[in-house]
């Protein structure tokens, strides 16, 4: 039943997403071409002869009008070929896929941590709305919300890595020791603590604030009084009745903020030397690696669209009034 409804909803949203995806691809392509810097110059190296420059342009199709380049790109993209990285000469898709797991690991962990902690904090402060604890939590989350990620990251590194030496400051695994099995997992987890905390903080405060507001609203509804009149316990009312309604807001926030989290991941990966897509992105901009940049942009946009689709469907499954 639920699976049937979910796949129907997902299919419909996927169809709606097709024009969106096309727009994203086109915008990405043209915007990157509008950016300053000539890829042929970079490819050809220092002080190239004009003949060599022209040869490079012809080889990469850069002498064609942008429109022609776009159509050629589209035609290839449809077959799964997103071009070749100007820097590494590897297929763009392969380069991205290689970096993808590290980003998924960090972003996914940050999302899960932020969701669980954010929901618990939001529900706990809604339960005590107006109390000192609630005011304290709200102020703290405002603080967390207004601190930029790169700054939080630096602070955490200074405190927990440089001063206290509790956690490693950079990388994904210890460079010299080559751990295997369980030790390896432990090592990676150890390296994740600071970057995940940095990345999760913003989303966590957003989730806590919106969940709190939605819970306060839900707890004030008549159906909560009716549930109490049936003899439901405080916890049952909180989670079964109020949170079942409030979580639609929570999931919407998670979906909407996912783009910001991914953007935050770029910064965090650079601060912490995390070998993921963000780092790749940064280097691609630096090297004017246009095919790679286009691919990475497209890839992350598709992921954002996908995550939003999933959150839309989840909301519809949770709230029958939005199901259509």
């Amino acid at each position, binding site marked *: 039943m639920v699976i049937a409804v979910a796949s129907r909803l997902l299919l419909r949203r996927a169809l709606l997403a097709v024009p969106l995806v096309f727009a994203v691809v086109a915008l990405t392509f043209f915007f990157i071409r509008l950016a300053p810097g000539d890829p042929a110059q970079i490819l050809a190296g220092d002080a190239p002869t004009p003949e060599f420059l022209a040869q490079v342009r012809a080889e990469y199709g850069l002498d064609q009008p942008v429109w022609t380049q776009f159509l050629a790109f589209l035609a290839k993209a449809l077959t799964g070929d997103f071009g070749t990285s100007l820097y590494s000469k590897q297929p763009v898709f392969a380069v991205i896929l290689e970096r993808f797991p590290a980003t998924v690991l960090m972003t996914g962990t940050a999302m899960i941590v932020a969701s669980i902690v954010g929901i618990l904090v939001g529900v706990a402060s809604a339960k005590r709305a107006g109390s000192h604890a609630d005011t304290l939590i709200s102020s703290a989350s405002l603080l967390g919300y207004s601190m930029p990620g790169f700054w939080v990251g630096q602070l955490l590194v200074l405190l927990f890595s440089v001063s206290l030496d509790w956690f490693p400051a950079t990388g994904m695994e210890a460079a010299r020791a080559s751990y295997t099995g369980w030790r390896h997992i432990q090592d990676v987890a150890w390296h994740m603590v600071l970057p995940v905390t940095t990345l999760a903080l913003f989303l966590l405060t957003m989730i806590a604030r919106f969940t709190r507001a939605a819970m306060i609203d839900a707890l004030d509804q008549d*159906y909560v*009084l*009716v549930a109490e*009149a*049936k003899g*439901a316990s405080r916890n049952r009312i909180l989670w079964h009745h109020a949170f*079942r309604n409030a979580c639609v807001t929570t999931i919407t926030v998670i979906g909407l903020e996912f783009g910001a989290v991914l953007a935050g991941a770029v910064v965090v990966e650079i601060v912490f030397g995390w070998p993921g897509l963000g780092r790749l992105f940064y280097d691609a901009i630096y090297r004017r690696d246009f095919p790679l940049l286009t691919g990475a942009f497209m890839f992350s946009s598709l992921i954002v669209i996908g995550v939003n689709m999933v959150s839309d469907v989840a909301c519809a499954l949770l709230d029958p*009034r939005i199901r259509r």
Partner: protein
Amino acid sequence: MSEPVLSIRDLHVSFPTATVVQGVSFDVMPGEIVGVVGESGSGKSMTARSVLRLLPKSARLGGSIRFRGQEVLDMSPADIRAMRGALVSMVFQDPMTSFNPVLRIGDQIAEAMTLHGQKDRKTLSDRVASLLASVGIGNPKARARAYPHEFSGGMRQRALTAMAVANGPALLIADEPTTALDVTVQDQILQLMRDLNATSGTAILLITHNIAVVASLCRRLIVMYAGRVVEDGPTDEVLTAPRHPYTWSLLQSVPRLDRATGRLVAIKGQPPDPAEPLAGCKFHPRCPWVEERCTRDEPPLEDGVRCWVRPAL
């Protein structure tokens, strides 16, 4: 005579700003249908919700509420929960907002029973279907799977009534159950309550500001004004020979077919603001029979009437 199922004595409900129920006392006997009428703001809902201790957080309760002889105000939270929905249940005013919008109707009705120990799924779904059928909802097995927004207002109020009686309570408190419904649906709900009372002997405390509703259903009538009981007696006596000026004015304001004028006479003036102290009888600023002592001392509820003057009405 048997023991009252509900016995309220000198009930007080106060908020930091005002005392909104003051010295309310009345009994409900087993199997009895008692009506409570009064303008909105007169403390009917707060009185009703006190019985299940479902007041807003800032409210303070005083006096005594005994359910089958047991003091409700002294019960532990666990005892209160065991009573709510099982021995005493409640139907609220607005059927549109009384169901949780994201849960199925049938699951919400079943919850009333799981909370009180019935866990067998087959028994639950059979019971839910028979409850829905008993309130006149056709195809109950399928309807139980519906969500609240798929039900009309009248169906929701019937389903709420079914939910309230799921555990066969000794007392049903209905707080303006028909106010939000149109007239034909009102009648269905009232008929439902009448049947319920007749078949299972459930006592009903029916709160309403609609005198016509009371007249058709209740044997006894309690009139509230400004957080106090001002008149309490058999319905036919109260309606045909009111003894309190407020009851009289209330009846004057009801359009009746047998009246020559057929005009609606609103009671002049406003009920007192509970936050403003008012000496004497709380109705005296609006009372046509007001005397000097009415402005000075509050009359006691004696012989079912709270009035110094007791004019011939």
